[in-house]
């Protein structure tokens, strides 16, 4: 036999084997497990070590805090006293413990659990992509080849290195999409699949995965509507109705996380400014080029090997939907670089206003590309079969045509197989780049105290029973400025000489104190206040965000408990939704589809049950809130009736109805190397554009300029949330550089649409100062 025949025979054998493996579920899963194992091996081999990257410290901490809450304190993971002076753990959007993978953390600890989670989630993604591609019309062989392209793509290699395990929530995207597609076909089990996958994604801290997956699911519905709008109205309405039921039950099942998160973000909204964008060149490098350190290359790597099959996939008419999805993903990923910007339009929606990084839309592009590739391989496979069929040979089709068909199929398939190598290599490269450390053993005997701490080394604090006041999160965690990291006791009586307080027992969600007071007084606990704290005696109050209890005179056994309504109500709604889904799953065996009006009515009742539970839970006793006025960094109210006497008037008028009334430097002739503060006094009209920001350019007569751009007035109040026709104090600190001496410094101030396109707001009237390029001269000084 000639070498060419040998090669053909080998290729034919490999093809037949792959088809057999793809058809056999246990074998297919074994192949997927082997691929996931190869990719996750470096993570699994270093599973005992601590990832020292800063974000890994914080995100891993939430998992540890939840584990300790359950295993050590035997409590639900509701409150985390170990970070930021105390925060609502269940309401922290980036925490990932409301997920089946938390079992790994519970059993094996955070660092080992993290590696196993990455391994497991990759398997979940591989099988999900396979099934999704199959549902999109791919053959088993093609779907088998396409699955690693998405489920092992660059984002899943980058994420563990940075501690961003929540990004593995994207592995649930094909499952959610599959669920919606089958729900549109009125299949009962698909409602369960959609709900479980979506709730898992939310519980897994998918701050990007869940909103982006929701968009993908909406796209699936829109595609279905477009293809059924002519002549199949009843089918269309029924399908959309069942899919809507799936979405409603998904929301209800995720309520245990969604409600607490909604509460958190309502109290402390995440403000995102700027107009991020990516050029086409950058997007191509992120998607197709391998990892290169100190660059964005390969962050969402799929590689060039997928290209031939994906291009073939575009040749099919039924791929129009996927092609459109891919184009939308690219458009969104370009962010503000694209004009018009779809990303900017998306950020007008409430749920999407907080998205910062448009390039993350390259993740769903990965799914679209992998599925297109699967369809391309399927097309080539079918064509090669047709050309090779006996009837085609009888019809005298040319041998050259047959060879070409087989060659196209072989090249596209082989490229996909070869492409798996660089995918696995990406995982190893990223894992190798991590800086790893070793955690000390927990010190269980030491009592808890708040420490100044450091979020850059957060993982070290919980084991030594210390909280870290040093805090970072993606949203402004409500944190009291009165917290201290050096107190001998975490509880004290605020009024000197009014009595004593002794700690009887301390756990994250429950603090018991013995208090003796000779007169009415306040007990202060060195943690943040939250509406979920309750006491058995006295009134729980907030003192500048600090947790306090106002008590009458006498001896008290004070018990503080943390049990927010959003946690309790959310859990109740989730429980009812879980019951409804179990009922649906049982019914799906006997009646797979929702066919009749009666069955639709039953489905509506199942959706209504958690909705009514939500309404019932919502009408309980409202938690007490403390609307403390926003304060400047020096402790004055941001909102004032008028200007201070010493204010230097400017009265510059901007478009959008905003006036810069005055600008005052705390020291007129500051010293080099010292701190001063600059107060800008604004006044806004009743109607002001949302998304305004303030830019501050601090320019010396020679040397480097400084920048003080910001969104919130005095760091606490958005201009659109401020009351109109009042003086709004915007105090910003200003460090005068060491080399400032003798130089003249000019501080220029203006407004820009920081969250809407980035254009400057025109200056209509400079008032008493100079105007230059839609900015006004606020102050100028010569540093001593």
């Amino acid at each position, binding site marked *: 036999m000639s070498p060419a025949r040998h090669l053909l025979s080998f290729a034919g054998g490999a093809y037949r084997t792959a088809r057999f493996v793809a058809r056999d579920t*246990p*074998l297919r899963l074994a192949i997927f497990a082997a691929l996931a194992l190869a990719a996750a091996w470096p993570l699994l081999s270093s599973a005992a*070590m601590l990832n020292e990257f*800063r974000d890994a410290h914080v995100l891993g901490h939430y998992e540890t805090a939840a584990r300790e809450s359950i295993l050590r304190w035997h409590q639900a993971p509701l409150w985390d006293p170990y970070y930021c002076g105390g925060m609502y753990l269940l309401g922290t959007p980036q925490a990932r413990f409301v997920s089946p993978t938390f079992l790994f953390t519970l059993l094996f600890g955070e660092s080992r659990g993290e590696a*196993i989670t990455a391994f497991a989630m990759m398997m979940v993604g591989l099988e999900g992509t396979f099934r999704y591609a199959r549902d999109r019309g791919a053959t088993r062989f093609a779907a088998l080849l396409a699955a690693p392209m998405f489920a092992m793509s660059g984002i899943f290699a980058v994420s563990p290195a940075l501690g961003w395990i929540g990004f593995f929530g994207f592995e649930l995207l094909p499952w959610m999409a599959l669920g919606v597609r089958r729900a549109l076909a009125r299949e009962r089990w698909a409602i369960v699949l959609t709900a479980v996958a979506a709730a898992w994604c939310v519980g897994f801290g998918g701050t990007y995965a869940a909103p982006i997956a929701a968009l993908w699911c909406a796209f699936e519905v829109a595609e279905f509507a477009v293809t059924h709008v002519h002549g199949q109205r009843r089918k269309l309405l029924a399908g959309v109705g069942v899919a809507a039921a799936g979405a409603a039950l998904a929301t209800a099942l995720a309520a245990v996380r969604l409600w607490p998160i909604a509460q958190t973000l309502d109290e402390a909204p995440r403000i995102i400014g700027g107009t991020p964008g990516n050029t086409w060149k950058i997007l191509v490098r992120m998607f197709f080029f391998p990892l290169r350190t100190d660059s964005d290359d390969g962050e969402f790597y799929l590689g060039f090997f997928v290209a031939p099959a994906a291009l073939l996939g575009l040749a099919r008419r039924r791929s129009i939907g996927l092609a459109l999805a891919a184009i939308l993903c690219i458009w969104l990923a370009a962010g503000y670089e694209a004009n018009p910007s779809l990303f900017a339009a998306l950020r007008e929606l409430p749920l999407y206003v907080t998205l910062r990084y448009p390039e993350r839309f390259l993740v769903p592009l990965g799914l679209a590309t992998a599925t297109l590739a699967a369809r391309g391989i399927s097309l080539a496979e079918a064509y090669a079969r047709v050309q090779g069929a006996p009837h085609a040979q009888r019809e005298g089709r040319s041998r050259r045509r047959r060879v070409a068909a087989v060659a196209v199929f072989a090249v596209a398939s082989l490229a996909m197989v070869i492409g798996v190598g660089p995918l696995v290599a990406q995982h190893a490269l990223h894992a190798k780049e991590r800086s790893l450390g070793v955690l000390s053993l927990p010190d269980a005997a030491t009592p808890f105290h708040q420490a100044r701490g450091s979020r850059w080394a957060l993982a070290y604090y919980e084991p030594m029973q210390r909280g870290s006041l*040093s805090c970072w999160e993606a949203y402004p965690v409500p944190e009291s400025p009165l917290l201290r990291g050096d107190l001998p006791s975490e509880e004290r009586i605020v009024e000197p000489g009014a009595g004593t307080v002794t700690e009887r027992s301390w756990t994250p969600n429950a603090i018991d104190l013995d208090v003796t007071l000779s007169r009415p007084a306040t007990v202060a606990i060195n943690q943040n206040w939250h509406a979920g704290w309750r006491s058995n005696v006295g009134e729980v109050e907030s003192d500048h965000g600090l947790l306090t209890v106002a008590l009458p005179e006498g001896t008290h056994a004070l018990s503080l408990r943390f049990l927010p309504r959003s946690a309790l109500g959310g859990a109740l709604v989730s429980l009812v939704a879980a019951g409804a889904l179990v009922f649906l799953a049982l019914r799906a065996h006997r009646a797979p589809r929702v066919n009749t009006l009666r069955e639709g009515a039953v489905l509506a009742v199942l959706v209504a049950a958690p909705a009514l539970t939500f309404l019932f839970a919502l009408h309980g006793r409202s938690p007490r809130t403390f609307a403390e006025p926003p304060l400047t960094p020096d402790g004055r109210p941001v909102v004032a009736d008028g200007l201070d006497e010493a204010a230097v008037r400017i009265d510059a008028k901007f478009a959008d109805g905003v006036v810069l009334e005055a600008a005052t430097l705390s020291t007129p002739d500051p010293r080099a190397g010292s701190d001063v503060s600059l107060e800008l006094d604004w006044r806004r009209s009743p109607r002001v554009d949302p998304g305004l920001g303030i830019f501050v350019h601090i320019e010396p007569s020679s040397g480097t300029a*400084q920048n003080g751009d910001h969104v919130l007035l005095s760091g606490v109040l958005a201009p659109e949330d401020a009351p109109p026709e009042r003086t709004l104090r915007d105090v*910003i600190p200003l*460090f005068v550089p060491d080399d400032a001496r003798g130089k003249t410094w000019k501080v220029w101030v203006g407004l820009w649409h920081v969250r809407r396109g980035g254009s400057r707001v025109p200056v209509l009237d400079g008032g008493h100062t100079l105007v230059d390029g839609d900015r006004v001269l606020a102050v100028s000084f010569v540093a001593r």
Partner: protein
Amino acid sequence: MNLAWAPFTLICALGLGRALTASAPSQSLAADGAQRRDAFRYVASDEAAERHEAAKTFPTDLWSRDDDFHSREAKRARDWARTHHVRVGDALSAIDQGLREHWPSGSSVPLVATVPPCRPRAIY
């Protein structure tokens, strides 16, 4: 059990086993009392200079300044632990203890036991 699932089960067990048998390098030594004071002095003595540097990096943002300082402080604690072959956690614990018990720090300014509230930057 159905034998068809054996390969899948085996590979999963291999992955799980690898994670559970992975070991960390042997722990560095625990710091003694003198070393803890030394660690505190080493880190805290530079606090004023580090805060000054942080102010230069973030001249108009109090939280960012403090956060930048904590980054420098954590790096210094790690450096000290590595050069003295003791646990990083001990160096961090020494800073906490020193601050709490007012150990001599060698710093020209009093150490700060509070932090500005968390204000993540809206614009990068």
